[in-house]
């Protein structure tokens, strides 16, 4: 149908974030609306983040928003959990019920007995914190063992350098690649990420391609010969889980060959001598043996990286999933630090929220600033896991997920009774998913908020609330710079945004709640910027000035990183701590070290005889975001079946041909996927991430959640001893065999 033959099209400009494309977003978009219905999405050509471009998931927005299977009104369960038995309810009835039940839990057991659970960092985390704190529970959490998605990396950076850094792709200025100060990275390391299938944590994956076009030389660390690997100067098909050894080997080369930036190390780091001593334990022949990489290739990669003026490094979630993820991240942090690539054009630059606006509170400071001192100290002290994990206690204002699951089963020191679950489908997505499901099945009351029916809704929800896509809500965001706005284009059914839902409940549960309307709250967020809500909505995005704390470069020299305004980094010593004092204070090794995966030919040789292949789960497809979108026809058509990537030679050895259905088995169980030849390391197989079959939700007793789900093959309890990292989803063992006709 042409635009001409119907009523006029209204264009609303907005910014992507979470539901819709699913990702952490940042793309500027035009949303075209006709007769109250979303008819088209188009990238804004002059938006600095995406420059008009969009991914297939964003481009399928119209299909996603208007999907016939959207949840469109609140529902209350009428039968047993796990059955498709619901009745429609009004918002008032559903919220009354939730309010009543959560107040009862609070009166009988204490507010800490209710959990507030999110998945990845979508536009719900900030709202869950608001709700949890105004209700009085300190137990806000991420539904992921070891918090193993970016948090180990974030905390390693926080511990060593006081801030978070990201590769400089010129993203913090409006001119982007034309900014006269920006430089093309001479070397760009892509560490464990198929970046062209993702946009992670403030980095648009294709910015790496733009750097490549401008002359960057790539080092790709990935067991799979993916497209980026094919364009790399050096490809390192690493044995999964050994990233820590590789980083230490590269540090060994760079330090022993004197390739580090001596001036930067002297002036801006502490602990270099200790690090130098530590890396002597990782000579290249030893590292080569651990990682299955030739020593000379590791050396060549280290030299290319160290000699790059500048060099950038993008890392992926395998760093977190390594046995001691946070420690691996410390080692990689040392790589860019000793080569002086910090706060340098085209190197690694500090990411700070634009104008100091906090729209996504992650610290106690930010929480109390926004909502007041809503929780007494003794209540805060009940946060689950802080007695076991001092890093969680001191730096991470959430409950530690593994400790939460244990406490649900043990009931000590206090029982867990209820959960408010939003933006997560952990019945599919958590490792050892049946244990997570069982834990939450034991609770008295569960609320699940989602856009679609999921195995988590089906298995656990007593009340389900219909949430909205980004096209159906307002918002402001400073994650990180520029400041951006989301503007409502359409409404669908009775769906409400996570912000609206949590706001209304926070108001009901805390009579002294600070804000009257969401707009009041956005205005409060915006105060430090001096920008009005109307202005940011109108303009869509605004960069802070060049001399601000949110704009590179050399902020450590200019005194922009520390609260006291002195030059230096925001650490106790004012320098980057290669030997991390805080780790020492908490009783951990303060220097990077290597830990072998729990299941491997080295640590469990007998098991490895039975299961001779390395199982690497979690490969990403651009058609999907985590477990989402298998129900969106055009996206599903891009990747209709769950795939396991196998080297043709390995497949032949196991009697498997391309496109055969294959059982992937280990000591945990078995899953079924379609074989796809790939040039992956012959001893490694790669399974796609978080698959479930939405079409079977109502047919199967397990809601289609397990048959093709790699998490089924991952034992629980593999999180790091710090509580941050581990889960080891990339480095398990398995065998494969063809699915016979009648099996």
């Amino acid at each position, binding site marked *: *149908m*042409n635009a001409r033959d119907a009523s006029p099209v209204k264009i609303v400009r907005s910014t992507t974030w979470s539901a819709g494309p699913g990702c952490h977003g940042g793309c500027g978009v035009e949303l075209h609306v006709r007769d109250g219905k979303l008819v*088209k*999405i*188009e*990238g804004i*050509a002059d938006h600095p983040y*995406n*420059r*008009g*471009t*969009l*991914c*297939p998931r964003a*481009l*399928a927005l*119209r*299909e996603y928003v208007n999907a016939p299977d959207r949840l469109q009104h609140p529902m209350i369960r009428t039968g047993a959990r796990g059955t498709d038995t619901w009745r429609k309810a009004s918002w008032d009835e559903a919220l009354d019920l939730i309010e009543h039940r959560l107040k009862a839990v609070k009166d009988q057991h204490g507010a800490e007995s209710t959990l507030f659970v999110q998945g990845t960092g979508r536009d719900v985390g900030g709202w869950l914190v608001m709700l949890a704190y105004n209700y009085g529970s300190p137990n806000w959490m991420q539904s992921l063992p070891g918090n193993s998605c970016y948090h180990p990396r974030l905390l390693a950076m926080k511990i060593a350098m006081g801030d978070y850094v990201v590769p400089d792709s010129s993203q913090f200025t409006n001119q982007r690649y034309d900014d006269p100060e920006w430089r093309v990275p001479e070397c760009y390391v892509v560490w464990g990420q198929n970046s*062209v*299938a993702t946009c992670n944590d403030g980095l648009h*994956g*294709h910015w790496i*391609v*733009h750097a*490549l*076009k401008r002359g960057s030389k790539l080092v790709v660390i990935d067991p799979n*010969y993916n*497209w*980026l690997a*094919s*364009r790399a100067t050096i490809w390192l098909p690493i044995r999964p889980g050994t990233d820590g050894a590789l980083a230490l080997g590269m540090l060994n080369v760079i330090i022993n060959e004197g390739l580090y930036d001596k001036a930067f190390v002297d002036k801006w780091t502490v602990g270099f001598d200790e690090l130098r001593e530590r890396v002597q334990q990782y000579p290249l022949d030893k590292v080569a043996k651990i990682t299955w990489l030739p020593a000379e290739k590791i050396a060549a990669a280290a030299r290319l990286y160290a000699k790059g003026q500048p060099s950038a490094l993008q890392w992926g979630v395998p760093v977190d999933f390594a046995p001691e993820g946070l420690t691996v991240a410390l080692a990689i942090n040392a790589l860019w630090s000793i080569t002086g690539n910090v706060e340098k054009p085209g190197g690694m630059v500090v990411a700070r929220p634009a104008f100091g606006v906090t729209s996504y509170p992650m610290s106690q400071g930010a929480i109390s600033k926004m909502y007041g001192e809503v929780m007494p100290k003794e209540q805060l002290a009940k946060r689950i896991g802080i007695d076991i994990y001092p890093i969680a206690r001191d730096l991470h204002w959430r409950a530690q997920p593994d400790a939460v699951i244990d406490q649900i089963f043990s009931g000590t020191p206090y029982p867990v009774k209820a959960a408010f679950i939003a933006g997560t489908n952990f019945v599919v997505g958590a490792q050892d998913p049946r244990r997570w499901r069982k834990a939450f099945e034991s609770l008295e009351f569960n609320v699940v908020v989602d856009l679609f029916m999921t195995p988590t809704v089906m298995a656990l929800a007593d009340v389900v609330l219909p949430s909205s896509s980004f096209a159906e809500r307002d918002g402001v965001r400073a994650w990180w710079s520029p400041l951006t706005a989301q503007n409502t284009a359409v409404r669908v059914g009775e769906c409400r945004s996570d912000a609206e839902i949590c706001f209304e409940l926070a108001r009901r549960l805390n009579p002294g709640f600070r804000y009257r309307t969401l707009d009041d709250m956005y205005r409060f967020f915006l105060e430090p910027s001096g920008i009005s809500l109307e202005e940011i909505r109108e303009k869509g995005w605004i960069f802070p000035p060049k001399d601000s704390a949110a704009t590179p470069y050399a902020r450590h020299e200019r005194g922009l990183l520390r609260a006291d305004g002195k030059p230096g980094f925001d650490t106790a010593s004012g320098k980057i701590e290669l030997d991390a004092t805080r780790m020492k204070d908490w009783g951990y090794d303060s220097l990077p070290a290597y830990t072998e995966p729990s299941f491997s030919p080295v640590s469990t040789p007998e098991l490895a005889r039975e299961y001779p292949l390395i199982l690497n789960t979690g490969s990403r497809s*651009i*058609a999907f975001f985590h477990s989402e979108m298998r129900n969106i*026809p*055009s996206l*599903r*058509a*891009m990747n209709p079946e769950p795939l396991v990537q196998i080297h*043709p030679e390995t497949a032949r050895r196991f009697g498997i041909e391309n496109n055969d259905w294959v059982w992937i088995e280990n000591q945990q169980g078995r899953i079924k996927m379609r074989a796809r030849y*790939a*040039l992956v390391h012959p001893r490694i197989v790669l399974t796609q991430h978080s698959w479930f079959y939405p079409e079977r939700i109502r047919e199967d007793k397990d809601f289609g959640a397990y048959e093709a789900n790699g998490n089924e093959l991952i034992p629980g309890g593999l999180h790091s001893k710090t509580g941050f990292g581990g889960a080891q989803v990339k480095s398990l063992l398995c065998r494969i065999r063809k699915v016979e006709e009648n099996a």
Partner: protein
Amino acid sequence: MTGKNGLWIDIEFCTGCMACEAACRQELDLGPTEYGIKVFEQLLNDGQTFNYVPIPTDRCNLCATRVHEEGKRPACVHHCMAQVMEYGPLESLIEHMKRRPRSVIWSPVSRSSQRPYHDLEQFEFLEE
């Protein structure tokens, strides 16, 4: 005009992201398994060859309405995440190709402008 304009695509940097497929599907209002352009993979076990090549289908009309009435670039060119596509007169596209030889130029002609689509749904046995 159609026939004199075309698409230039830099094969060295096409990542196979399928944004062109999705952008086209929206623009031409195609069904979930219909294509105005489709990305093909060329992955050979020779340690050298790994390319993605988008090829316009017989439905591609080079976004006639969008280009000539709305003054925009074709939907695939506009949304391509790797920014490896250009639209324009064939003569100018040759200049891109001279500059970046690992590339292709397509000169799509919408089949519907030449001959009708044939109804294939009569062959019901094709669907398993």
